[in-house]
């Protein structure tokens, strides 16, 4: 794949972004831990019926579950696959235990293992030594990576360390609060593994709540997690992280998450869900219209403003 450098072409619809960057069989990274999940892009990837995706993240929740249930992801690489306080993820279980809709493979590490692997890839080094994983079965069983980890003694001190291989990523999705037209991306609130995970990727497709004037970004450069040259495409997707939060923009939609946890208990329920909430709406705009303005307004974040700082010298 070739990096697209033409600045003027970066802003595109979610349909165009997925058509251009997400091809069958790639290693695709989801985003967001606990919030800022890139659902506008995930739902579009499902609508375009991509296949054989290796879906990557540390903490998967509905993002991994829906991609598995829709038959898009056939391999997962990550550390957690559940719905947090809402219980077990049903599509993921059906796929792994019964091969419905298809048998999936899971290469699992811990959360720190995954983010250390992203960090290695982002830094261009082949592995990262960590002090977890030691003594556990995480390194005893593997799924599709030929070599998952390597135990060694530190050549300097003799101490045992576990080496984890860098995690290569073809395309990373990120949901961010804002960027400018060039693709300088700003995030605030918890970063999860987006900073290192996105920098690990060959291509970053970012969905944002809004595009702001470059001056706004450049007046607060500490908030930038990705400089424009690392970003290939920008999709404007307000509420794109729904039903998850986006700090400063909207709260989580707990009712929706409960609904998802409930309807996905059966395959039929999940298929209905896909029809109602992914295929049916046709686009992110259609999804927002189905949710309705009142519901979205109720989720809008309350103001909690920080004070400006002086960047002068």
């Amino acid at each position, binding site marked *: 794949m070739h990096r697209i450098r033409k600045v003027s072409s970066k802003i595109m619809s979610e349909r165009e972004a997925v058509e251009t960057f997400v091809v069958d069989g790639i290693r695709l990274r989801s985003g967001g831990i606990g919030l800022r999940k890139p659902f506008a892009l995930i739902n579009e990837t499902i609508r375009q019926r991509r296949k054989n995706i290796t879906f990557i993240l540390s903490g998967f929740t509905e993002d991994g579950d829906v991609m598995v249930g829709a038959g898009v992801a056939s391999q997962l690489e990550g550390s957690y696959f559940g719905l947090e306080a809402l219980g077990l993820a049903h599509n993921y279980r059906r796929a792994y235990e019964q091969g419905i809709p298809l048998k999936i493979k899971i290469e699992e590490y*811990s959360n720190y293992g995954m983010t250390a692997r992203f960090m290695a890839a982002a830094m261009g080094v082949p592995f990262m030594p960590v002090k977890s994983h030691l003594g556990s079965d*995480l390194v005893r069983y593997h799924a599709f990576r030929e070599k998952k980890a390597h135990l060694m003694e530190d050549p300097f001190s003799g101490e*045992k360390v576990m080496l984890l291989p860098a995690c290569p990523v073809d395309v990373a999705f990120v949901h961010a609060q804002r960027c400018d037209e060039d693709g300088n991306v700003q995030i605030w609130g*918890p970063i999860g593994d987006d900073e290192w995970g996105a920098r690990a990727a060959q291509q970053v497709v970012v969905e944002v709540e809004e595009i702001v004037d470059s001056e706004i970004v450049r007046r607060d450069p500490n908030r930038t997690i990705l400089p424009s040259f690392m970003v290939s495409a920008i999709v404007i997707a307000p509420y794109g992280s729904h039903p998850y939060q986006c700090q400063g923009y909207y709260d989580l939609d707990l009712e929706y998450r409960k609904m998802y946890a409930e309807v996905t208990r059966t395959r039929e329920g999940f298929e209905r869900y896909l029809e109602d909430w992914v295929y049916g709406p046709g686009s992110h705009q259609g999804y927002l219209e189905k949710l309705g303005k009142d519901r979205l307004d109720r989720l809008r974040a309350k103001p909690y403003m920080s004070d400006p700082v002086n960047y002068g010298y």
Partner: protein
Amino acid sequence: MATKFSLAELMAVASSRQIQDGEIAFIGTGLPMLGAMLAKALHAPNAILIYEAGIVDARPKRTPVSIGDGCLVPGAAMCCGLTEALGTILQRGWVDVGFLGAAQINKYGDINTSVIGDYYHPKVRLPGSGGGNDIGSLAKRTVIMMAQDKRKFVEQVDYITTPGWLGPPGTREAAGLPRGGPAKVITNLGIYAFDENREIYLESHHPGISIEKIKQNVSWEIAISPDVRETEPPTDEELHLLREQFDPQGIFLGGRE
């Protein structure tokens, strides 16, 4: 003092009492989220709460639904990422106490949150490690929270997701783990600790739960402390805070096994 309480409420309160004032605590999903809020509000106002997605020294006003919940951000001292929280804080050795959940546990406190049955063809595929393996490997001590029955307290776990003591004294160290190990296990039946052989024993049984019942829910002959006692029940104040302020919707307290 006569207020009735559920076992989930008792577990949340018990988890809160594991956090001492001034300690740095790593908080995971579930009842410890409530326990941490309770500790901070009552006996441990100077505890520093760290949430894995990258929120440091949070002062939550609402109970978070996840370890990256945006409600943890207003009032927090620092926002960073998973790498910084797990790498520069946990792995570096700053964390005094970390909380873990488990589907299976053995007598050395090794826990399984990955599969029930054969790894490649399991009966139940569970969520996996998340940050569990990291917390169990790298916090100075850990507190394990789980539902208890004979299939969960087992001689051999189906998969060691997170190392406990791994075996008699020296085993954990020999694996290369730099510190830590399980200190307590809190279940819906009782509270357990580990002896000098790194083996689990019953420290207290919850009100209304007999030692006989506890024995029936462990698949080996569980050791009982000679000083075994009844778990101290929640106070009215603790129950009030839990019900009225921290989990009025019953997200954690309502649906617990």
